């Protein structure tokens, strides 16, 4: 009875392997199932789209889920006003190409109207929550797709695939619905909405292997390029309108690429020669530093930085 793998079960394995899906196909299939469930069960979904690699993969999955139909929901971008110009350009071209509707929530407008105050450290990533919730309420979105992945952060590791948010957009990690089999419970009351994370189970490497396999276009700054940078907080920060070196910070030109694309004021570049998607796959596979640890100042604030932002309604 304690014998392990009899001849019989071994045969089952061999017979079955020939028909098994690869891990990427299995992840793709799971994500498409979730996207279709949300579209079928919610009145008005939207997809958070920043032009970052995870949201680009999400949009690609959505086009596959409804082929030959069009993606049946708008995309929503919370613009910090400090985004990389080439990413905004990429966002607009992508939306145009697919014939989608784009809804923009603007951090700058909230700062201009005095509803949000600029932070002392200059980063605007945490400021995205208010415009995000405002856009969700004003447009009556009841489900918002995000490209969050559980391997990104310890708090995200506890996130559900369908995550209920209250009237204030808050996440209550200690009181989450159990998620059983592939039956997703998205019931919510008026004022509540649901965040849906169809690529929860993907890792950074899965994302890159998928981008390579599907030949998905990304903003150019994900690939190695020469850029004027200066060192701050152990990261290479780009010189730009909102990201200026202090007098003691020396500006040099380096060959860099970005592993995440967020607000210019808190996203750092990594030194890299990975100029093509297959170079990046190799680099990520060999990497010894997490993508957020390497390139996000906002996640270095404390051990619970992401958890605190999520509780307040962040992505």
């Amino acid at each position: 009875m304690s014998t392990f793998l009899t001849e019989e079960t071994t045969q089952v394995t061999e017979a079955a392997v020939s028909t098994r899906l690869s891990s990427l196909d299995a992840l793709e299939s799971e994500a498409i199932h979730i996207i279709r469930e949300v579209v079928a069960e919610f009145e008005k979904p939207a997809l958070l789209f920043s032009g970052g690699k995870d949201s680009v993969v999400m949009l690609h999955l959505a086009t596959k889920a409804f082929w030959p139909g069009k993606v049946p929901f708008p995309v929503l971008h919370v613009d910090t006003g400090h985004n990389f110009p080439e990413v905004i350009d990429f966002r607009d071209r992508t939306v145009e190409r697919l014939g989608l509707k784009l809804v923009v929530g603007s951090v700058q407008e909230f700062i201009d109207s005095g509803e949000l105050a600029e932070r002392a450290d200059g980063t605007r990533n945490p400021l995205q929550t208010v415009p995000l919730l405002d856009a969700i309420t004003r447009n009556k979105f009841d489900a918002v797709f995000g490209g969050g992945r559980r391997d990104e952060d310890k708090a995200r590791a506890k996130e559900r695939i369908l995550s209920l948010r209250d009237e204030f957009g808050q996440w209550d990690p200690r009181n989450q619905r159990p998620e059983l089999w592939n039956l997703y419970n998205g019931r919510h009351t008026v004022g509540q909405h649901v965040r849906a994370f169809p690529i929860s189970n993907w890792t950074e490497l899965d994302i890159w292997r998928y981008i390579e396999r599907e030949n998905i276009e990304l903003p150019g700054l994900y690939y190695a390029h020469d850029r004027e940078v200066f060192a701050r907080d152990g990261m290479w920060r780009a010189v730009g309108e909102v990201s200026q070196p202090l007098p003691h910070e020396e500006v040099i030109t380096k060959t860099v690429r970005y592993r995440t694309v967020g607000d210019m004021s808190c996203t750092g570049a990594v030194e890299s020669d990975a100029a093509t998607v297959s170079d990046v796959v190799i680099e990520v596979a060999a990497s010894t530093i997490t993508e957020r640890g390497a390139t996000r100042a906002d996640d270095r604030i404390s051990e619970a930085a992401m958890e605190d932002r999520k509780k307040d309604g962040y992505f």
Partner: protein
Amino acid sequence: MSTETLPVPGLEAALPTTLFRFATAGSVDDGKSTLVGRLLHDSKAILADTLDAVARTSADRGFGGAGATGTKAIDLALLTDGLRAEREQGITIDVAYRYFATDRRSFILADCPGHVQYTKNTVTGASTADAVVVLIDARKGVLEQTRRHLSVLQLLRVAHVIVAVNKIDLVDFSESVFREIQADVQKVARELGIGSAELGTADHIDDLLVIPVSALDGDNVVDRSERTPWYDGPALLEVLETLPAADEIDTQLESFRFPVQLVIRPQGALAPDAVAAGLDVEAYRDYRAYAGQITEGSVKVGDKVSVLTPGQAARTTTVVGIDFAGESLEEAFAPQSVAIRLAEEFDVARGDTIAAAGTVRESSADLYAALCWLSPKPLREGAKVLVKHGTRTVQALVRSVSGKLDLATFKLEGASSLELNDIGHAQLRLAAPLPLENYLHHRRTGAFLVIDPQDGNTLAAGLVKDHPGDHEDERYSI
């Protein structure tokens, strides 16, 4: 270009071919988070900055003591305890998902805490798992909690259960201690019907392997240990790399099931401009396909299928196309998401099921089930609830609770209500019939959720049982 064929030497390790989901279950303080941390650490899934952060926190809390180095000096449990409250209290509160890969497989690990709401967490983790690793503290042996975990896993028909006897270093790698625990585990397994003679079938737990491990030191976790020379079995990771996933077993043994999620009909009257950009609108004027994920078995173009619409007689037709994002497939199998085209223009909608012709019995409005109660709000006879089954949600009335399971003795005892962590039997009357199938034979179409119609919360995990009087294997009386 497919990455699988990328000719880069040394990159094979980054390109695993299949996905394997497993969960861990254990009691308080048996070192479960440490085991998970050890698997992640030794399979090199923990990147340097994460490890640095854990080492700093470990040192702050005095873990490992003066002079400790390497993994002895870090609290591996901190790798999985993701919430502030968990780190502060040194406990795991909620199921955490972790990811690592070897050159054979990508793993999704659900780390299920053992103390608060243990049934809820174990049921959640086990519902999607191909395998569950149950931990036992070598100093404590089989506890009541162990028996409860094993009976929940048996109820859910997890394909593989592995028992890790942890902290074997704290009993001086004693073979006699291990053998005694192993015998106790096998006794419980026999009582439950885990690991019977019918290996290789999908209907029950196939095998029960007991492994002596030290999560703290790494013995028999990734590599076989020299400190347990009396144990000649595989290390834990070797087992996880070679067991067949549940889909591999199901695909061989079960027949085609496809709950329809939605109808893809871009030229529908309500959406005249809904064809994707770049496609010829005329070419898809009459396109109509049913989108869904295959839950079991496989389907080929030309196959005869039945369309099951609750409340109507099954309609039989032929599959004329299987589409996936512009690709035409000849065959598809679980768990693929596809869109299926049928020969006849039936009225097929979300909530209907397409199945291999003649393999599904009639829909029923009487539901007999085992319920794992997951809510602090108890179940009472006469309650009105919602039942979510496949892609359909219907109202239901709880007609009776016929008993609850004593997880320590595996006996059904009389009960008229179910409370948090209880597992019991109930009879429900559905407002509309559903194509219910016995969970023992169909793990997807035999599963459902019970939902609170007031606040929308999930109240229970439900497993469809045959109606009383139908033939049922006596071993599965729970």
